């Protein structure tokens, strides 16, 4: 059953990739010679949409089969959660596409979905039984609804980014187009990280370090801690010795104030992500010979900016209540049942609260202070960054009650 479910997810991934390629062809190929642009967009866009729907159904199949196999909603570890969040993003996209019928939306959202799903694959994929703290249907309702809210808000980000790509002037230098390039290169860093991690975990080129700190094993022996790097080591943990040589020698040691067993490994991963992102960025720029923002601008030419602004706002207006319900209200009900307190300022709770405050500020600025268009689009980008902090940084760096085991 688990095998079937993994296959379904892989199938969904491949379908999404095909669908995005078609979407890109649909929006960029309009000027190809000998074609009726409208007809071209209709044909390819329609096909891409159909592939996305089939991918979505396969993704749904993954969720159903995994749910049946493990007996709980597939949201109990980082892999499952990210795969589920991705499902919600695609779902939100399908809804908004039904409302606005804008082909180019898919050319932005589906790649975002691929990115999220790729990120999910970085984490251990085992289906584990639930520890007592997670055995609650309120928890399942809470996590699924919160993910749905985050998925819809992410589509708000995608549309906001499209607005910026469409409207930020590409003639001359400006703060806006600098920031736009930064946002795009951060996206590429995530791509770089996923590609590197999945490549190296297949190559089995681990470097193993022995740390000076000690730890007790299950059998009660005290041994030195070990850390395994999947990526080649640029920074070694402070004071560590190499047990198993990897593909390269570390160039430096992590600063000693970086505490914790995995701090240096995370730093190493971060350096690789940044480097690979910059390499990708540089490569792409050499290829297109202009700013990436300028290159992307062609894909959204001819779309009314107001429409993009509206889609971004609508996604956020639809996602905000869902997020509130899932990430705050259901969370409180569950916390009340599990710990006897509906709120405890645990880092994860606090960050959900921060996301909520941020989007409240967004709505107030938009409704009462007329922040529409560019300002609003930047807010949607920042909002997405805060969501990512909540999902990724808080889980992996700030360990709290909710922290999932994993990378």
């Amino acid at each position, binding site marked *: 059953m688990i095998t079937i479910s993994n296959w379904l997810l892989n199938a969904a991934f491949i379908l999404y990739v095909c669908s995005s390629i078609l979407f890109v062809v649909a929006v960029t190929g309009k000027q190809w010679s000998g074609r009726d642009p409208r007809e071209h967009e209709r044909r390819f866009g329609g096909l891409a949409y159909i592939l996305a729907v089939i991918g979505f159904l396969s993704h749904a199949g993954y969720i159903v089969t995994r749910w049946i196999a493990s007996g709980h909603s597939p949201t109990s570890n980082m892999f499952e959660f990210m795969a589920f969040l991705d499902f919600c993003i695609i779902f939100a996209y399908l809804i908004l596409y039904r409302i606005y019928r804008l082909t180019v939306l898919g050319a932005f959202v589906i790649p975002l979905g691929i990115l999220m799903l790729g990120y999910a694959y970085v984490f251990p994929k*085992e*289906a584990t*039984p639930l520890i007592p703290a997670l*055995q609650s249907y309120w928890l399942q309702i809470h996590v699924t609804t919160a993910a749905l809210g985050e998925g819809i808000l992410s589509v708000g980000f995608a549309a906001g980014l499209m607005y910026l790509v469409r409207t930020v002037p590409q003639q001359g230098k400006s703060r806006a187009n600098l920031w736009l390039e930064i946002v795009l290169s951060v996206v590429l860093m995530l791509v770089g990280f996923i590609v590197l991690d999945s490549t190296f975990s297949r190559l089995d080129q681990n470097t193993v370090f022995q740390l000076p700190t000690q730890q007790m094993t299950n059998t009660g022996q005290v041994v030195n801690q070990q850390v395994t790097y999947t990526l080649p080591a640029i920074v070694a943990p402070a004071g560590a010795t190499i047990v198993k040589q990897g593909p390269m020698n570390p160039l430096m040691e992590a600063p000693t104030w970086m505490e914790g067993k995995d701090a240096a490994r995370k730093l190493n991963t971060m350096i690789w992500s940044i480097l690979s992102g910059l390499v990708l960025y540089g490569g792409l720029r050499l290829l297109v010979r202009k700013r990436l923002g300028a290159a992307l601008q062609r894909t959204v030419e001819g779309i009314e900016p107001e429409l993009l602004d509206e889609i971004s706002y*609508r996604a956020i207006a639809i996602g905000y209540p869902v997020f509130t319900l899932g990430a705050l*209200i259901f969370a409180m009900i569950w916390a009340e049942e599990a*710990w006897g307190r509906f709120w405890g300022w645990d880092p994860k709770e606090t960050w959900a609260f921060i996301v909520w405050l941020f989007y409240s500020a967004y709505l107030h600025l938009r*409704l009462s202070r007329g922040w529409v*268009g560019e300002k609003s689009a930047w807010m949607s980008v920042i909002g997405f960054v805060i969501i990512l902090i909540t999902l990724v940084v808080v889980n992996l760096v700030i360990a709290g009650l909710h922290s999932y085991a994993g990378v």
Partner: protein
Amino acid sequence: MDVRKCECGHTNPVGTMLCESCGKPVDFQESGQPEQAAFPDMRYEGMARRSQTYSRTIIDRIWNFFSSVKIAIALILITLIASAVGTIFPQQDYIPVPVSTEADIARFYGETYGKIGEIYYALGFHNLYSSWWFKTLLVFIGTSLVICSLDRVIPLYKALSRPRLNQHLSFLKGQKLYGNSPEEASIDPAAALPAAADFLARKGYRLFREENALLAEKARFSRWGPYINHIGLIIFLFGVLLRSIPGFYLDQFVWVREGQTVSIPETPYYVKNVAYKTEYWDESEMPEKLNLNGGAIPKTYQTDAVLYVNKNADLPGAKPELAEVAKGPILVNHPMIYEDLAIYQSGVKEMELGALNFAVLDRKAGNKQVGSLKLDLYAPQTEQQVAEGITVRVLDYFPDFVMGNDGKPATKTNQPNNPMFALEIASAEGVKEKLVYVSGTVISDSKDPRYALEVKMPDFIDISGLMVRKDKAVPVIYFGALIFMVGVVMGTYWQHRRIWVQWENGRLHLAGHTNKNWFGLRKEMELLIAKMNWPVTLVQKGKS
């Protein structure tokens, strides 16, 4: 002057910006500004608002401060940043080692996080969410919610409940979305207006008609959304405040050994731990084979408990008389609930020493075992008979033995972490021998003792940690959350729209207003124009 008279003859209250009757901007003549710059915000259709009208006294100033959305946004953003700062390092409640004194806590932050940790501690950020200034922020937001609602609710009611029909032309021209037909256009108002009304009715609009004017309106109720959601928030915050009233909130924690009954502080209740168990997932139950490195994944933490109430709780000094009121298992996520009391499974100390077991050997009879001895670590019997004629007396007991500074034995805590016993064995003949048990060995006092104690497997017990909570404010808090949700959904899933179509001076005038989603409104009006075939182009003022 407390009233203003419009040229149409209507008398408006002070602060009104659009005449309540004809819709003509009230103070154009006085301000002398060009029409478009002076046209008021349509959100409340120019109704008088206290915060926009008075700013003389200190009360006015405070009122205006709290009713401003700009201030509200600032408060929200400050709260946001403060909340984020509180997650940089763990809050005191979450620091991994249970530290007791203030100095220990300070040391924890300094040692774990270095200089930054020290600063963090010094600024009080380790208790950020209960700090006075964080609470003040929340109180400010609450105050702001109340005042901004009061400031706007009546103007909004007026703006919504009297749909403006047949307004002064400057009212229509002042709208953000406006267009008119050229004078020479061949439009027959008698046919155009009903056709438009028909079209809009099919789009779900509610219609108001006069001979030469038409107003179509949709989803008026959604304008109440923000007020309802803010009331929900106010109720929520009120619920949070309630918890500081004595009796509304109780938070206790008790450790209960298997077989033990303990009193729950601040309540008349007692709880008994009948049995505790931890279960682990069996491999056959797992969806997939896992490599657990010899570990196991817990499945349940369960205490079978009985809850009693002390009937004599109100009589000081009386012996407790316990009556059973509830019984059953307590599991994580499944608390025991009795009236407004809830008991949660929230900790366990497993395999703790419960009692020491010994075999009593008679050395004179070739180390023959003559009896066995059990020393309960929580309630040791002072004297027990271990065999015919042989009694053991406990002379001294130190549950958590240390050598004191004065050279005398002492106990660090009253938990049996390192039990030490001084015993006396008396034989039938009346010979007394003294023995000491400490750290797994038994030392005898006499040179050639008759009796020896052989250490056997001790009894292990599980101690269950139960959290006891009472929170009478929870229903209020949930109710507030529910109201908030209703309001948010009303406000965000529907949009209020008004479309005016008016025939005047031989032209057709079209204007539209909404509080959000101007793009959608424009599309809808453009569709109307296209369907009706009117020579009208809409102009949208300002940014979309």
